[in-house]
C-alpha cells in the first residue's frame, strides 16, 4: 500500500499545487536555516579522529608559580614550555608521543616554474604520523636517526605535492623553505579535519599544515613559532636561545595512552616529573597539577563549540517550529476539505489506521521534498557563512550525515505537523459526508 499511498500523495500535490508548494517552501526554509546552523555545530562538535580520540591525550602542566593566573577554566596553561616538551619527549616511557609547534615558510623550488608561496609548517617529532593516522601516499616518516641528526627533511601533503611536483612521487626531490634546502621523504594524504584539535591555540578551524619537519630542525635553525606564545614570568625572550630556557609556553604535547591504567601511570609519571623539576627551582607552587585530556575532553575543555553556536541551533529549531505550525494549519485546511473522500474510503472498507497512514505518507512526501529543497537552501546558507568568515571554511559544510539528516528532520517535522490533521480526518464519521458529496 505504501506505493499506492505515495501515488495518491503525488496526485494530491498536483490537485492543490499552490498549497503544496507553499508547504514545501515553508519546510524547506525551516530546514535550510536549521541545517545551516546545525551543520556548523555538528562539524564543530564531531569527533575529528574517531578511531583514536580516546587514545590520544593532550598534556598540560601547571608550570606557573603560585600567585600567577591563566585564562583557562582551571588556571592550567594550554601549552607547554620547550624544556618540558623536550623532557617529556626524551623520557624513558613506553608510549608514543610528540611535541610540536606551528611555524611557516616561503616555499619555492630552484626554478622559475613555481611561484613561491607561504605555507604554514608543523614542526614535530616523528611519532606524529603514526599517532594521528596520517596516511602516506609515497615514502614515509623521517627516521629517529634523521631527527636526532637534524637532517633537512620534510614530509609534505598531497596538496603541496600537487602544487610543487604535479602529484608525482617526489620522494628524494628537494624544495626550499625560505633559504633552507630540504629533501622530501614522504607525501601524505591531505590532513582534512573539521577542527584542528591537535593545536587549538592558533585558530580551532584553520586548515592543517601542508609541510611537516622534524622539531629538531626548528631548534637548530632557530625557527620561531607562528603560533601564540604565552608567558607569565618576567624574563628575557630576545633570542631564540632565551625562548628555549624560558617559562614561555608555545608547544603542544601529545601522548598515546591505550587504556586507563596507562593514563594513570602517565599521570603519576607527570607528578613525579613536576616534583623533580621543583628541586631544580621550577614549579614553585604548593599544589601540583596537570591535565591529560583525550581529544573529546580537550574539545569540551577548550570550548570549541561556543555558546553562541548552541544558541543559534536552538533559535533555528524554534524557527523550524514556527514553519511546522504554519504547515499544520495548511494541512488542517487541506485534509479537512478531503473529508468527503475519506468518508467514501471508509465506507469502502478503509480502517481509521489506513486513512491515518495514507495521510502520514502524504506529509512524509511533503517533508522529503521540503528536505531536499532545504539542502539547497542550507548550501546557500553555508556558502554565506564561509564567505563572511574564512576561518569557518572547514566547518561550514554538510557531510553525508548532515545530508541524510536534512530530509529526515524535514520528514519528522512534517509528520509532527501532520499528526493532528491526519488524526482529525481519520476520525470523521463517514456517514456525515456520503450524502453531501
Amino acid at each position, binding site marked *: *500500500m505504501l506505493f499506492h499511498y505515495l501515488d495518491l500523495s503525488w496526485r494530491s500535490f498536483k490537485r492543490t499545487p499552490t498549497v503544496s508548494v507553499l508547504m514545501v517552501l515553508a519546510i524547506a526554509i525551516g530546514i535550510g536555516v536549521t541545517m545551516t546552523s546545525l551543520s556548523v555545530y555538528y562539524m564543530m562538535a564531531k569527533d575529528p579522529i574517531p578511531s583514536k580520540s580516546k587514545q590520544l591525550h593532550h598534556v598540560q602542566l601547571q608550570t606557573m608559580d603560585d600567585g600567577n593566573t591563566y585564562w583557562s577554566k582551571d588556571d592550567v596553561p594550554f601549552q607547554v614550555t620547550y624544556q618540558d616538551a623536550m623532557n617529556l619527549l626524551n623520557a624513558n616511557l613506553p608510549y608514543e608521543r610528540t611535541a610540536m609547534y606551528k611555524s611557516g615558510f616561503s616555499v619555492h623550488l630552484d626554478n622559475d616554474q613555481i611561484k613561491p608561496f607561504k605555507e604554514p609548517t608543523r614542526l614535530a617529532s616523528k611519532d606524529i604520523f603514526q599517532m594521528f593516522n596520517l596516511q602516506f601516499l609515497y615514502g614515509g616518516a623521517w627516521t629517529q636517526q634523521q631527527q636526532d641528526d637534524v637532517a633537512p627533511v620534510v614530509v609534505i601533503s598531497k596538496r603541496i605535492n600537487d602544487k610543487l611536483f604535479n602529484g608525482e612521487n617526489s620522494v628524494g626531490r628537494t624544495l626550499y623553505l625560505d633559504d633552507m634546502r630540504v629533501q622530501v621523504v614522504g607525501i601524505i594524504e591531505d590532513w582534512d579535519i573539521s577542527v584542528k584539535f591537535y593545536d587549538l591555540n592558533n585558530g580551532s578551524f584553520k586548515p592543517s599544515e601542508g609541510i611537516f619537519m622534524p622539531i629538531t630542525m626548528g631548534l637548530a635553525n632557530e625557527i620561531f613559532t607562528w603560533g601564540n606564545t604565552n608567558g607569565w614570568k618576567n624574563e628575557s625572550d630576545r633570542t631564540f636561545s632565551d625562548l628555549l630556557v624560558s617559562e614561555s609556553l608555545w608547544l603542544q604535547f601529545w601522548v598515546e595512552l591505550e587504556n586507563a591504567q596507562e593514563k594513570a601511570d602517565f599521570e603519576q609519571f607527570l607528578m613525579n616529573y613536576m616534583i623533580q623539576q621543583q628541586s631544580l627551582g621550577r614549579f614553585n607552587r604548593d599544589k601540583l597539577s596537570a591535565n591529560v585530556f583525550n581529544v573529546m575532553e580537550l574539545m569540551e575543555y577548550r570550548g570549541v563549540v561556543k555558546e553562541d553556536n548552541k544558541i543559534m541551533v536552538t533559535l533555528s529549531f524554534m524557527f523550524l517550529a514556527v514553519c511546522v505550525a504554519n504547515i499544520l494549519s495548511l494541512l488542517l485546511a487541506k485534509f479537512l476539505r478531503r473529508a468527503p473522500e475519506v468518508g*467514501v*474510503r471508509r*465506507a469502502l472498507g*478503509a*480502517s*481509521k489506521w489506513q486513512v491515518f497512514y495514507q495521510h502520514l505518507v502524504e506529509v512524509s512526501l511533503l517533508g522529503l521534498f521540503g528536505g531536499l529543497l532545504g539542502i539547497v537552501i542550507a548550501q546557500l546558507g553555508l556558502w554565506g557563512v564561509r564567505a563572511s568568515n574564512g576561518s569557518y571554511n572547514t566547518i561550514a559544510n554538510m557531510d553525508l550525515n548532515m545530508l541524510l539528516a536534512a530530509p529526515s528532520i524535514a520528514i519528522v517535522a512534517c509528520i509532527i505537523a501532520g499528526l493532528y490533521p491526519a488524526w482529525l480526518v481519520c476520525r470523521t464519521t463517514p456517514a456525515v459526508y*456520503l*450524502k453531501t458529496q
Partner: protein
Amino acid sequence: MLTMNKINKIYQTDMVQTHALRDFDLQVNEGEFIAVTGPSGSGKTTFLNIAGMLEPFSSGQYLLDGVDVGRLNDNQCADLRNQKIGYIFQGFNLIPDLNLYENIEVPLRYRGIKAAERKRRVEQRLEQVGLASRAKHLPQQLSGGQQQRVAIARALAGEPRFLLADEPTGNLDSLMARQVMELLEQINREGATIVMVTHDSELARRAPRNIQVVDGQLADFTLYQGNPAAAVGA
C-alpha cells in the same frame, strides 16, 4: 443474513434528543431484494448507515451474517464492511482523482488483494456494467448514469453478499434510472442480497419486498406481487 433487534439510534445535542430509529426490528434473508421507502427524515438513511456500519447505534442488537456488530471495534467493522458489504450512493461518490479502473480497485486494495486478481475483478465488473472501454476515463468525463454504473461496479468488485443502495437513481433521469435498476435486478438474480432506499414508489414496486420506515420505526411490510418491469414503464 441481516437481523436487527430493537435497534435505537438517538442523536444527542446539548438541548435536544432526536430518535432517528426506535425499536427497529428487521430480518433480511439471503438473496432478497428489499426496497425501503418512507418520507424524508423518517430514518431510512440512518437505517442504511447502521446496516453498513457507517455509524454506531445507541442500543439493540444487530447481527450481520451471524456476527454481533455491536461487539466489534472500528477496525473490525471496517474489515467486515469491506468483506461483506457493497455500497451504492445517490451521489455516486466516485473519487475524482482516480480513473474508473482505480475507483473500482479501491475496496480491493483495502482488502489486500494481489494486483493480478484485482485486475481480473475490475475488468470483469467494468465489462459487466458496459464501461470496459472507458477504464482510463476520469469520473467527470462520464454521464451521471455511467458514473452510477461505475459505482455499482465498485460495490460489486469485492463480491459482497450484501449490497446497500441509498437512492441509487436519485440523481438520474428516467432512462438511466431504468438501466441502473435493471442492473441491480440482474445482480440480485445472480445471488446478491440488496437493500435499496428510495423515494421513488414506482421503483420500489419493482423490488420483490418493500418496507416502509416512518418516524424511525418499521411501519409496514408489502410484498409486491406484480410484474416488476411494468412498474417503471419498461
